[in-house]
């Protein structure tokens, strides 16, 4: 649709630009939330930097693993063609997993408790994701099924990733809207609860459910499929199950803690 922004003759890729804007905006928002909650802002900077690095690694690695066969990856590496491996795309779940690992490493470097930052950082993730999906829309990736509805978008740019001349459902914008709604819900819950983990559990359930449903409308099937479901759908199911289990365990843990204190 609009893969490049031309500024003084320089073609700036919209996908990367939106990713950068998303990360900057979320980092600034998280920084102010950190200060407001009385935590150390510099520690958040350390955690955010490690999240960025490992999220990129995770997202790109996940994309390569679901898109290319091992033989193809080996061929690209042997022939030194890194472009398709590095610039093919990013899978959000890979970035999420990589980012979680990066956050843990960042908390070790900062010598702070990561759990104290969960409620601060997690609500801003869907905001960044919403902005990133606008980048997907501009680049012409992650598009939906062909449609005759008025919502359909026809990609015409020769450098775009989507097939040109076909009216496609703008699933990127739909998912962006869903992420903004999730962001609003999490910010509301975060302002009204003292629970450390509630926003994280809620995010996993909300986004996992939304992503599972939206995947049925995706038309770019190079993400990988297994037993009728896409890779992201399987990850979504795991995310929802894990969040529900964690929620139940935390609930019983807190309940047993209150029972012990009452008996004392």
């Amino acid at each position, binding site marked *: 649709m609009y893969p490049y922004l031309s500024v003084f003759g320089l073609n*700036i*890729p919209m*996908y*990367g*630009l939106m*990713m*950068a804007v998303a*990360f*900057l905006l979320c980092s600034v928002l998280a920084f102010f939330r950190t200060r407001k909650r009385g935590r*150390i802002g*510099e*520690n958040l*900077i*350390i955690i955010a*930097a*490690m999240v*960025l*690095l490992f999220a*990129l690694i995770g997202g790109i690695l996940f994309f390569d693993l679901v*898109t290319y*066969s091992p033989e*193809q990856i080996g061929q690209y590496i042997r022939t030194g063609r*890194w*472009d*398709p491996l*590095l*610039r*093919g*795309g*990013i899978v959000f779940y890979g970035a999420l997993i990589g980012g979680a690992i990066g956050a843990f490493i*960042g908390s070790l*470097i*900062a010598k702070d408790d990561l759990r104290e930052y969960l409620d601060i950082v997690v609500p801003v993730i869907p905001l960044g994701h919403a902005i990133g999906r606008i*980048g*997907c829309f501009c*680049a*012409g*990736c*992650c598009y939906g099924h062909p449609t005759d509805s008025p919502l359909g978008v026809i990609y015409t740019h020769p*450098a775009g*990733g*989507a*097939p040109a001349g076909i009216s496609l459902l703008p699933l990127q914008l739909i998912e962006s809207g869903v992420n903004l709604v999730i962001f609003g819900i999490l910010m509301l819950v975060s302002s009204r609860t003292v629970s450390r983990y509630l926003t994280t559990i809620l995010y996993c359930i909300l986004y996992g459910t939304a992503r599972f449903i939206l995947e049925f409308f995706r*038309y*770019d*099937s*190079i993400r990988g499929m297994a037993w009728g479901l896409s890779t992201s759908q399987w990850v979504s199911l795991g995310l929802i199950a894990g969040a529900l289990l964690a929620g139940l365990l935390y609930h019983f843990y807190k309940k047993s803690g209150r029972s012990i204190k009452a008996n004392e």
Partner: protein
Amino acid sequence: MSIAALVLGILSIIGSIVGAANPLSNTITIVALIVGVIAIVLAAIGMKKGAGHGKAVAGLVLAIIAVVVSIVMLIACGGAKQNVSDLVDGVVNGNTEQIEQAASNLAGDAGEEVQSAVDDAIAEIESAVNDAANAAADAVDTAADAAADAVDAAEDAVDAAADAAADAVDAAADAAN
């Protein structure tokens, strides 16, 4: 720590600008990104400790700019374009496996109709190649047969000429007698 952050921040922004000026150079951009992240971490640690606050902030700002530029130039979403490139390479080099893989990837984007059309095209190409090979073999066989026939005809002609010569000699001998 603050001085290290400043130095790495300067290096990362130089690297990111060089990488941006040469979009084909992924290595420089990746190195600039990693160095920028390290500079951000060191700057934050320096700011926490309170020593060299100004240098730490300067290093932080430079590193953030470098990281942003690196992300913008490095991250893309162009799987389809790469598959088209692979398809073209496969056709040029006659690599049917590469053609099939790239076509399969593209078909994932465009659905079963394209996959079917590509399969048909590959089948037609293979069929045409087989037909051409068979035609060439037939032509070789025909030429071999024609050559053999020519040899036989030549032998027959030689035999006939020899017989005629022998007859002529006999006739001449009879005439002489």
